[in-house]
Structure formats: C-alpha cells, structure tokens
C-alpha cells in the first residue's frame, strides 16, 4: 500500500509537471539562440531599408515620452527624423552619414558622424555560440501591436550579468515594433513601442527635413570630431571580463573637445559594453553610477585616468568591467 501511495504520488507529480510543461510550451517554445540570427538580421535590415512613419512611446524609469518618427530609404540612402512630442522640443535628423540633434531651447545643434555597422547579419559563429550559452531564446506570443500582426521573442539571460530582452517583430516585414529590456525581477528597465506605424508608405522628402536651417544664426554648433576608432593596442586590459563578453573593438578615438580617448568594446552578441579610458591629470572628476534608460554608466578615477564604462547591462556588470581596468 505504502508503495502504491508512493507511486500514485509520483505519478501525480509527474502529471502536474507535464501539465505545467505543456502550458509553458504553449506560452513559449524554447529554441536555440542561434536561430535568432536570421530574424535579428531581418529586423536590422528592415529598420534600414523600409519606409515607415509612426508614433513611438518610450518608457524608462517611470518616465513616458512620445516621439514622432519618419524613416525614408530613398534609393539606398537613409533619412530619418525624430521629434519628441513632450517636454522641451528635441529634433534628431539623420542623413548622409551624420546625425544632427537640435535643441531649440538651448539654441544648440550637435552634429555627429554616424557610422553604420551591420551587427547581426555578420554574427560570427563564436557570437552565436555565446548567445545560446548565455541566453535562452523563446518564441513567445503572437499578437497585435499598432495594428500589425507581430511575433514576440524573448532572450532570457542565464545569469545575472545581463538583462533580458523581448522583441516584437512585424510578421510581414520583420520590422521591430516593440522592444523591452527587463531585469532579473522581470521589471521593465526600458521599453519602446510604436503605437501607430505605417510601413511602406510613400514618404515625401520634406517630411525628413529639419525644422531649422542646417546652422541657424545665433545657435551654437557643436561638431564632433572624426568619429571612427583607430584600431590599435591601447595599453589597457580588463582583468575580469564577465563571462560571454568578448572584445570586439580596441583603439583610440577623439571625442568632441578633441581629447584622445582609449575605447574598448565588449559584446556578448546581443549587447555591448564600452570602456573609455582617458588621461585627466590630477584633476578630480565627479565619479559614480548613473542610469540613462537601459544604459548604466559608471565613472571612476584611476590615478590620473578617468574610466567611463557604459552599456545595456545591469549596474553590477558595469562596475565589474570598471573595476577590472588595468595597465597591460
């Protein structure tokens, strides 16, 4: 009898487990993270190649902001205009390899070169392996967003070193229409979503032109220096890089005020962490942790160098990067 009870109990548990597994399977089908490659590449291509115009709601740390976005691909050339609809006006215009940010209240234009790097189509086998080693990819729910049929995908991190990511892509075009970064308590760190979007619409060039002339009289123009990293050995190393992150870039670059800064980039295939090291002499700089949407930033002073680390990973990971910077 005892034995029978035990069996019965075991069977009950097994059935319950099977039921739970069945439900989980319905809600989310685990797939190999390698399989993410094609649709990630498709989403990246769609974001660049398609014409679309829509309203975006951007949420971060209790803030909600709405922006209007117009994206035009005119015979392979990209034009983009982003205007925020709440708070002080900001306008971001992307065209011909540069980005102009207009701040009318401060009468400032920032001009940045913008280099495009096609990350996902060129996911190396090593990066793909890292993806499936450190994230569990699940095909989540299909649903309607902004009037489009979408498929959701979830990258669930397998350790506390990274955030979780959920992407909703338009089934028809592959365009990303909603994206969420969540932490280990499943709380939203940052999210953006189209509330309405028209894809493939004919877009007039006028719609992507800035509201202001390229250099409005009386405005301050802040031009960034040459944008690219010149690859070289910076003399800096990271002694304890969190698992799954590999160095993808190392070199020097010039930031706006022409100071030369060492820039190292580490990526796990999905997100990146940038490490900047620059000599600042004996001057004391404000240090500590700050957050901007899904990006955490940690600044520390190391003797006569300022170390700035930032990326779309939890603060504890950013700190680990920052605390492991050393001279080679």
């Amino acid at each position, binding site marked *: 009898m005892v034995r029978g009870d035990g069996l019965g109990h075991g069977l009950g548990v097994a059935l319950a487990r099977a039921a739970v597994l069945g439900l989980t399977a319905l809600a989310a089908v685990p797939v190999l993270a390698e399989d993410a490659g094609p649709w990630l590449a498709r989403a990246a291509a769609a974001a660049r190649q398609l014409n679309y115009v829509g309203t975006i709601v*951007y949420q971060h740390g209790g803030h909600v*902001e709405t922006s209007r976005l117009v994206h035009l691909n005119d015979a392979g050339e990209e034009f983009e205009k982003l205007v*925020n609809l709440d708070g002080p006006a900001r306008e971001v215009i992307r065209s011909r390899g540069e980005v102009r940010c207009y701040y009318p209240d401060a009468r400032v234009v920032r001009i*940045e070169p913008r280099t495009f790097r096609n990350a*996902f189509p060129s996911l190396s086998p090593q990066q793909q392996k890292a993806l499936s080693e450190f994230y569990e990819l699940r095909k989540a729910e299909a649903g309607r967003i902004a009037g489009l049929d979408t498929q959701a995908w979830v990258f669930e991190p397998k350790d506390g070193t990274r955030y979780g990511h959920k992407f909703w892509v338009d089934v028809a075009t592959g365009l990303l229409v909603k994206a969420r970064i969540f932490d280990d308590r499943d709380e939203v760190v940052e999210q953006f979503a189209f509330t309405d979007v028209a894809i493939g619409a004919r877009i007039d060039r006028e719609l992507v032109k800035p509201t202001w002339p390229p250099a409005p009289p009386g405005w301050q123009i802040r031009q960034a220096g040459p944008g690219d990293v010149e690859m070289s050995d910076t003399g800096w190393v990271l002694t304890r890089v969190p698992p799954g992150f590999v160095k993808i870039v190392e070199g020097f670059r010039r930031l706006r005020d022409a100071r030369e800064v060492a820039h190292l980039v580490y990526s796990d295939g999905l997100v990146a962490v940038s490490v900047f090291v620059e000599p600042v002499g004996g001057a004391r700089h404000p240090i500590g942790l700050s957050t901007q949407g899904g990006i955490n930033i940690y600044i520390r002073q190391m003797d006569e160098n300022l170390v700035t680390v930032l990326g779309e990973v939890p603060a504890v990971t950013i700190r680990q990067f920052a605390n492991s910077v050393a001279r080679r």
Partner: protein
Amino acid sequence: MGEQISRLMDGELDGAEADAAFRELKKSEGVAEWACFHVIGDVLRASGEPSPGFSLRFAARLAEEPTVLAPRPRESRRLPFVWAAAATVAAVMVVGWVAVSTLDPQPAVVAKAREAAAVRAAQSKSPPVSPDYLLAHQEFSPTMQIQGVGPYLRSASAGGTDGRP
C-alpha cells in the same frame, strides 16, 4: 576591508566574498568600520546628527533614573502575544544598547564619517555624463542596430541625463 564591508551593507556581496566580510565583522576593527558606515548612513539620510558619547551619557542617565513602578495593565491577560513581542523588543533593545555603547563613535570617527558622508552624498548624485560617450558607444551595440531609433530616443529624451545638449 572597509570597501568590502560597505559593499556588504549595500548588498553587493555574495558567496565567498560575503563570508570573508562576515569574518571581518567578528574583529573589532571590522565592527568599528561597520558602525562608522552606519553613522555615515544616518548622516546621509539626515536622520540626526550623531552626537559623540551620546550612548554612554544616555546609559549613565538611564542608570540614575528612578525605577517607576507602573500599575499592572488590566488588559495584560488578553494580550499575551503583544507582551511576548514587547519582551522580545526589550531584549533586543538591551542587546542593542550594549552593542551601541561599546561602539560609541569617537569625535574623530564622527568627523571622518561626516567627511565620508559628504563624499558619498556627492557620489550618490549621478555624475554628469557627456553624450559623446553614449553616441560613441551606440554604434557598436548590436541591439541598437535593430532598434534603429532606440539610441536616438535616448538622445531626444528630455527627461534623461542626455536632455542636455
């Protein structure tokens, strides 16, 4: 070790690191660090100026207080749990006072704590971050490639650190 104890109090340590910090807390220097950081915390939270020698003076004055024989509360039999709880609180308070009086921060410690608190307060205010770094970073971030506008939303966001030009 101070840093480890501070990180322990911030909940940043786990496993072996935490164990090492706990071992350190068994030594008197470790306990002093612990007390010092709590004084810093109190100053930061503005929960009152730490007054040097307070707990020793309080203990002395408490000892001089006449014992007040309070009338027995009528409701006592109906509140066994409350009284049990009160007894526990009293016990904890006694232990607490013993601990605090042996750890009474000395003027130098308080001065050091104030200085440290000022530094930590300055640090707890997010340092300004130049948008240069964010823009330089985003071109390498894989997820930003599919978000297309994600990074610019951050730039255009008036509420964020990057609201500044």
